[in-house]
Each structure stands twice: as structure tokens, then as C-alpha cells.
């Protein structure tokens, strides 16, 4: 999603018919554009079906009650509510979902999955969207993506996560240069900034990570 797209996109969402039967943009009470569901590509529908299968979710189970979104602690910061992500997937709007920031903002708290009356694992679905979004080269929320990459790089290098190195590297690469610098004095005083531990058999971890990547590719 480009920055310039934010405003019209929000307008689409806020004016969406809650039953989801028609996608439309309403300006001053007049419908100026309605999405044509007949234009949705079969390949997108198939990709969505595979995505849902990987997440172990039947998208048809969702009847849009919104309980997931009511309880979502990150809801107010999202561009699509969890309920709307599912609705888009039901309708076939693959690109909208892969470009949404929502799965990248999701804190993974699992409240949605836990409260869904249809027992849909919404959190796992959200994670699957995020993994698919990353695997297909989308990057709707670069900060979150960078954090994950640096973390995984850390584990590959040391076998453990060096928290301090992680925070510093993230700040450098994300441009948040002074984030948490204020806390570091106390951390130093409290012995929290000691150099992390490196494991002995780092080769085991590296090979394991490579085999896991291969396992995923073969699927």
C-alpha cells in the first residue's frame, strides 16, 4: 500500500456495507465506485484457499460477528480490523489483504482465536497472511519485517538472541536511532547489557534452520 492510498482506502472501509455483499465507495451519499466481484481472478481465489488451508481455517465459518475485532488490543492501530481481513479473504481480495498492515501490527496475543464463537483460529490466520505477504515480496510494514529479519540473523549467528545487539541494530536500520537509549543507562547499571551467550554447537542450529527452509520450499 502506498502512503497516498491511505485516505481513499479508509473511506472504502468505513463505508463498507457491513453485510459485505457489495464493495463500494460512497462520497456524500452517492456511490462513486463499486467493486466488481466478477473481476476477481481464479488464481487469487486458489491462493486464498491454500492460505486458509495452511492456517487450518475454514473461511466460511466466519459470520462476521466482530467479536475478534472488539477484543483486539491493536484494533485502533490497524488499517483493516481482523473481521475485515477475513471478509476480504472470503470475497477474494487477495492483494488487499497481503498489502494490509494489520497482520504486521497484530501482537499475537490470541484473544481473537480464544473468543471466536465459531472457533476460528484468527491469530494463526493472521500469522499465515503475514508469512504469505513476506514470501510473496510484499512489505506493508517495513519496521516489523526488519525486526524479524534482524532477530533471525542473530539466532543464526549466535544460536541465541542478543537482546542489546538486536535493539541497537534495529534502531540503526529503522532510523529510530535514539529509541530506548534513555533506558540503557539503567540497564548497564543493572547488569542487563552483558554480552549474550553464544552456543557451542552453532553449526547444528544453522543446519537446522537451512533444513527448515528447505522443508517449507518442498511443500
Amino acid at each position, binding site marked *: 500500500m502506498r502512503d497516498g492510498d491511505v485516505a481513499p482506502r479508509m473511506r472504502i472501509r468505513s463505508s463498507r456495507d457491513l453485510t459485505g455483499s457489495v464493495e463500494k465507495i460512497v462520497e456524500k451519499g452517492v456511490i462513486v465506485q463499486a467493486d466488481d466481484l466478477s473481476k476477481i481472478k481464479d488464481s487469487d481465489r486458489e491462493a486464498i484457499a491454500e492460505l486458509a488451508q495452511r492456517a487450518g481455517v475454514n473461511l466460511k465459518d466466519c459470520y462476521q460477528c466482530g467479536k475478534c475485532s472488539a477484543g483486539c488490543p491493536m484494533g485502533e492501530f490497524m488499517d483493516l480490523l481482523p473481521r475485515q481481513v477475513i471478509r476480504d479473504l472470503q470475497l477474494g481480495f487477495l492483494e488487499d489483504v497481503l498489502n494490509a498492515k494489520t497482520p504486521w501490527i497484530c501482537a499475537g496475543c490470541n484473544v481473537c482465536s480464544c473468543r471466536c464463537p465459531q472457533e476460528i483460529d484468527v491469530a494463526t490466520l493472521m500469522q499465515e497472511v503475514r508469512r504469505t505477504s513476506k514470501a510473496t515480496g510484499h512489505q506493508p510494514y517495513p519496521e516489523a519485517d526488519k525486526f524479524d529479519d534482524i532477530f533471525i540473523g542473530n539466532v543464526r549467528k549466535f544460536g541465541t538472541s542478543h*537482546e542489546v545487539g538486536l535493539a541497537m541494530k534495529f534502531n540503526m536500520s529503522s532510523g529510530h536511532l535514539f529509541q530506548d537509549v534513555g533506558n540503557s543507562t539503567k540497564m548497564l547499571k543493572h*547488569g542487563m547489557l552483558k554480552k549474550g551467550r553464544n552456543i557451542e554447537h552453532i553449526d547444528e542450529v544453522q543446519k537446522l534452520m537451512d533444513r*527448515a527452509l528447505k522443508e517449507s520450499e518442498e511443500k
Partner: protein
Amino acid sequence: MTKYAYFPGCSAHSTGISQTISVDYIAPRLDIELTEIPDWSCCGTSAVKLTNMDMALALPARSLAISERELPGQDVFAPCAGCFQSLKTSAEFSKESDENLAKIKRMIDMPYEASVDVVNVLDVLNTDEAKEALKANMKYRLQGIKVACYYGCALVRPEKICDPDSVENPQVMENLVKIIGGDPIDWPFKVECCGASNHITIPEAGKKLSKNIIENAVDNGADIIVTACPLCWMNLDMREDEINKKFGTNFDIPVYYITELLGAALGGNATEIGLDRHFRPAEGLLTKLVDKDAPLPETEEEKKARLRKEAAAKKAAEKKAAKAAEVAEGADADADGAADAAPATADKKDEVKA
């Protein structure tokens, strides 16, 4: 003596240091023996899970396989809630089917039978043995301290993996706090999310979530917040000043690990249980301890009974005094003469009627 294979996790010697220190202090005092899993590696946590699910299942399995080989028959204890969630998710996946186990073994390339169970801090503290040892060995008790027990996410959700006593209103921590004399409050935000790593990637959102939790604890009368997760602890304790600055609030509430609280009851000093490593002043806890055998404070029922008793005693005393006055008056009348005595008594009778 209960033996556990110990998985400290990457935060153990950095931001989670107070939990590590307090776990080390209380374990032997609660008849718990911890042996660190040799050459354990990172659990992968959310970063790996959000990138590659196969890797997220394989990374913890390596440490579990080493534990199975080196410390057979022992449950794996992960004090970090995030590690617990990752390790247990992987263990449960392998136990689910032979196919799953085969897949994990392909990736870790080690012998592994998926025989280990994974437990968190609350599981370890909530056994009958640990609770009996706590009661027997505690030296001090909290008195009149209102405690907000904060669970966050990874100790209770996903429900299938974490298997809590209740997913919306767990009571395990409350029961431990009651044993050491604390007064747990009832509050609705105990299983809300602290913001997790969003404090780094989208700080505005993270701060709002932590603020909501602190605010709700304070509004419900808490003196302290108690947690069992290093990430929750950091997002509350370390960020309280930032939250005050951002939202113009004036929160001043210490945040402890449940293990620190038990450590204090077991007689540990500030250094021994990690209180000197907090971001906000935390050592005040020790000044609020009373001797374990000190008289218990009055309960609500006892207070009511006492007030009733006092009221009855006061009434009885008044009655007695009135009677004494009457007798004295009677004696005066006798002295004045028998003739006056009769009308005086009649007057009194009239008064009673009126």
C-alpha cells in the same frame, strides 16, 4: 525434591535478570532442583514464527531433544512465558502424530521421541509439594498489600497449548499471593496484552496497551502489579516513566515477578531476589513484610463481630449506669422519707408510658 530440565531463555541474563535471580533463590527453598539443558538454543519466539512456521517448530525441538537425551524423564521448565509458549507449541506438535514427529526429526537431525512436557513458572509453583514447602519455609508475610496479578498472553493463550485453569480469569497467581498474605484484587485486564515486541516496532501502540493495564490495576486499588513474564515485566516496569510522560499520567506502581514476591516471603534480601535491578524503585516491598507469625490483621467479618460486640457492651454499660443512677436516686428518696418515695416511683412509671 522435584527435578526440572531448566531452559533459561535469552532474556535470562539481560532484561529478565530479576526473574532469573529470584528463581535461583526460591528453587532450593521450595524443594525444586533445576539443571540447565546443556547448549540450549533460542526458542525462536514470535519473530521466527511470523517468518517460517517449520523453523519455529524445529528450533525449540533441538533444545527439547537435548533435554530428553541428557535429562531423561524431567519436565522442561521455561521461566520466560514466550519461551514456554514456543517450546510447548513445538512439543505438542510432535506429540500430535508420527508424521509430525518425523518431520521435526528430519529438520533437527537428532534422536527425539517427543517424550518431554514443558511447564511455566506458574505450573512449577502450583504443585502441592511447592506450596507445602512455601508454607513451611516462609519467614515473612505481606500485610495489607493489594496485588494485581497480571498474566498477559503467553501463560494462558492459546488455551489448547497453555492449558490454564481459566482463560479469562485465571487464579493460580492469586492463590500463591494469598498463601504469602497478599490481598489479590479483582480486575478485568489481567489477561490483556502488554504490547509485546510492538513496543519496538510501533511504540505508540505498545505504550497505549501498557498504559491501559497499569491504569486498570491502579483504578482497581492495586498497590503493586505482579507478573510471571520477562517481556510483560519490561513493558510495564521499564516503560512506566515513558507512559507518564506521554499520557500526562502520574503512575507510581512497582511491578514484580511472582518469584520475587515469594523470594521476599522466604526471607531473601533485595540483592538475593533481584529487587535492586528494577527500573522503578522496588525495594520498598521489603519494608512492608511482617513476621510470618505476627497476629493476622482483622478480616471484614471479624471487624463486624467486634463492632457488634462493642456496641452490645456499650449498651449494657449504659443500662447498668442507668440502673445504678436509679438505685442512687431511690436511696436519696429513702433518706428524704418514705412518704415522698411513692409519688417518685409513680412519676417514673408515667415517664416510661410516655
